[in-house]
């Protein structure tokens, strides 16, 4: 599964995207975020405060209980600040 990072999540984690092999038990957005935290201290720090970690699945905003499936396009980013 490919994960995209934007804004300060990208700069803190250090890469704009990465491809991960998800364990079968990771079935929701919330579980994915928790699992990503275990990948490195940088991930852990960047993802520490879930209130400012927003998630899109297939380019739609979704809550943490949203299911994820192989082939989904997943992106993590801070609250948006455009306009």
């Amino acid at each position, binding site marked *: 599964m490919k994960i995209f990072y*934007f804004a300060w999540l990208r700069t803190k984690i250090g890469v704009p995207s990465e491809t991960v092999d998800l364990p079968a038990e990771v079935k929701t957005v919330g579980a994915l975020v928790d699992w990503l935290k275990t990948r490195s201290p940088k991930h852990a720090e960047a993802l520490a405060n879930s209130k400012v970690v927003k998630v899109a699945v297939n*380019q739609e905003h979704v809550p943490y209980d949203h299911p994820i499936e192989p082939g989904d396009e997943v992106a993590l980013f*801070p609250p948006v*600040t*455009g306009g």
Partner: protein
Amino acid sequence: MAIRVQAEDFDVGAEYAALTRGRSSIGGVTLFSGLVRDMAGGAAVSAMTLEHYPGMTEKQLEAIEAEARRRWPLDDVLIIHRYGRLEPGDQIVLVATASAHRDAAFDSCRFLIDWLKTKAPFWKLEATPDGERWVEAKDSDDSAAARWDP
């Protein structure tokens, strides 16, 4: 009419002319443009870089436009949002709505910019004398968007 996400600047006069040209059903056009200020949160801003999520941005803006057209009788809608490096005084965003009725034009234009600020995946990086900093989301933007909740 159009959603455009682009690095290039836009010409408000030309966009307004295109929106109204040859039409006599429009009673009012409301237009909002957002510009880069030289000050933010008490600090001088020398430049701003807008990052976005290509693909999702267009999708969200199209959804926002469709919602506006569902809520108000609109002759036309235009949203242009720039990305990349901008300087103070540069234009960031343009939202324009045309309707037979002034209230519909005003309400829909404000709805679009309020929603865009909380839904469209853009992030601002400001360059200040203390270095670069990511702009934090404002609670006031969330409450502005919440006004439009059904």
